[in-house]
């Protein structure tokens, strides 16, 4: 388990550092690329905890689709590629205070509840097979599954109507 912990630590550090850069970078393209690091890190964490299918989906959907969407967005809104001073509001300190406050509450509650609960003690991180996930989706979560498919259709149509040039 030591190896996993080391991996976790490295990935976590990279994620936090990148996440901070995502929200502070003055260069919009850099921010997008740092976001890739965070999303990839998430996928890696998924795989560490044994959720391979979700990890792969994460890579496919986020890095394959969402990031591309962002790049399109950056291009279509003709953002200047490079350092841009006006990307931040002048209320950063308030944002910081709110975020810290929220983190304090969350961290207190989490530490209080799951103090040193081990993740691998009871279930030993058995890889949950993809089949279990799919069985769950198509057995217990059939309604939300159909609803999500419908949601994607509606979002697609609506987004096209709203975004298209007339």
């Amino acid at each position: 388990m030591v190896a996993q912990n080391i991996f976790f630590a490295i990935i976590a550090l990279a994620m936090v550092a990148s996440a901070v850069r995502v929200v502070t970078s003055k260069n919009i393209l850099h921010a997008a690329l740092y976001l890739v690091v965070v999303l990839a890190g998430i996928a890696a964490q998924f795989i560490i905890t044994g959720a391979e299918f979700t990890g792969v989906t994460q890579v496919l959907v986020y890095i394959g689709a969402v990031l591309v969407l962002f790049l399109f967005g950056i291009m279509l809104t003709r953002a200047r590629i490079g350092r841009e001073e006006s990307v931040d509001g002048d209320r950063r300190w308030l944002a910081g205070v709110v975020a810290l406050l929220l983190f304090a509450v969350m961290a207190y509650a989490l530490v209080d509840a799951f103090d040193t609960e081990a993740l691998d003690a009871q279930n030993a991180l058995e890889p949950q097979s993809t089949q279990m996930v799919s069985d769950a989706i198509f057995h217990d979560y059939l309604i939300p599954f159909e609803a999500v498919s419908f949601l994607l259709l509606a979002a697609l149509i609506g987004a096209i109507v709203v975004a298209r040039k007339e």
Partner: protein
Amino acid sequence: MIATLLAQAPQLPFEAPVVDFHALAPQIVLVAFVAVILVVDVIKLEDAKRFIPGLTGLAMLASLVPVISLALHGADRSLFGGAFVVDNVSLVLQAMFLLAGYVVTLLSSNYLAEGDFWESEFYLMLLSSMLGMVVMCSARDLVTIFVALELLSIPAYLMASWEKRNLRSNEAGLKYYLMGVFASALMLYGMSLLFGITGSTLLTEIGASIAEAESSTPIVTLAIVLVVVGFGFKVSAVPFHTWAPDTYEGAPTPVTAFLAVASKAAGFVALVQLVFVGFLGRTDVVEPLMWALAAASMTVGNLIALRQTNVVRLLAYSGIAQAGFMLAPFAVSATNAADALTAVVSYLLIYAAMNLGAFAVVIAVSRKTQSGEISSMGGLFGYAPGLTVAMTICLASLAGIPPLGGWFAKFVVFRALTAADTPAGYVLAIVVALNSVIAFYYYGLVLKAMWFSPEPHGDSTPIKVPVSLVSALAITIAATVLFGVFPGLIGHFTGNLGGLLSFAGG
């Protein structure tokens, strides 16, 4: 090669779920109509296109048929291990959503046809959102609730910005979208904690699990607060209300009516299910939280409403205050569960009728005045007495004047609060009473403008009200008056909601 790999994989048996199609029939009918509309739209039969509003309305009414047949059939149905339940509460609310959707369709048809809009896609959005609401009524599981919420919200974000060339409409959509997504994120975080604490997404199991401990642990408290905040946004409770006035003002008015009634009601439906099924064991968290939200919403909503000059904004703030009234019974949700549940559902039904009626009048009047200012309604009685009377009924009902529906709604809330017999309940009852007095002032201002002020531009040509608007008005006004004059009607629907509570027994 692949075949051999597949053959090597361990074969776990997959049991196909048993699906009760009758229970799902309302949703299936809606989906079927969406398919029809899509086909009509894609084929671009120009002749057929003008039938799309009619088709949309038909879709809502057709979905009512299985709702009624389910209600007549009587027995509660539980699908997918309790994740999807069809009981009295869900049927009453489904019927309310479908009728509200029908009225919104009536409100939209002329508005859209006369403006610069993408029409058939709009109805697609409306139906999708409606589908989300109808699913929400039966959802008793976090995943289903979440997906239903997003299904009803995402089309609504788009509808708010549907008037593409209008900067205000754009802004309305943007604000609604951003605030909605932030609230969703908070709610999702809370849901993840609930799932983490209990290991299940079913509300009944969550309820049983978090009710066990003597007192609440911080993590449960945090989870409940975050989930409630997510829906507090949806129902525009203070301090998560800030989007509502801006979005209401900017969005096309029929969309505003939809947001103010259906979307807000959907938030309440989710809250009802979460609180009465999931959180009832955690009175110590839910009651003070809801108390604070209810008191703040009523008071802040009413006080700011006093200063409004735009009637849509006024209705937005009044809606915030009304949300406070509807949240109030939640503050006694555990001590007086049956009454509180009845009060919330009754209020929702009546609120839907009277608020839609008010918006219908606003839409009708602005067809002539092209303005949302209260002063533009001056002298309305002179040239549109019918609309004036309709608006008076709606506003009087919102203000809670007998014998209209709103009075009954306030009464049941008051009764739930006082019958709980707790100090907090009594104090909140007093807050409710005080706020209902404040509310008279701003409703009175609109009434005064309509009845007593002169026409601002001296133009007193009558308003031509299209048939669809007349029908919408007739439905909503009739419901508002009937619910007030014969509250027994609503008692038929809301009298026996105990089925929902029985889940909380575990």
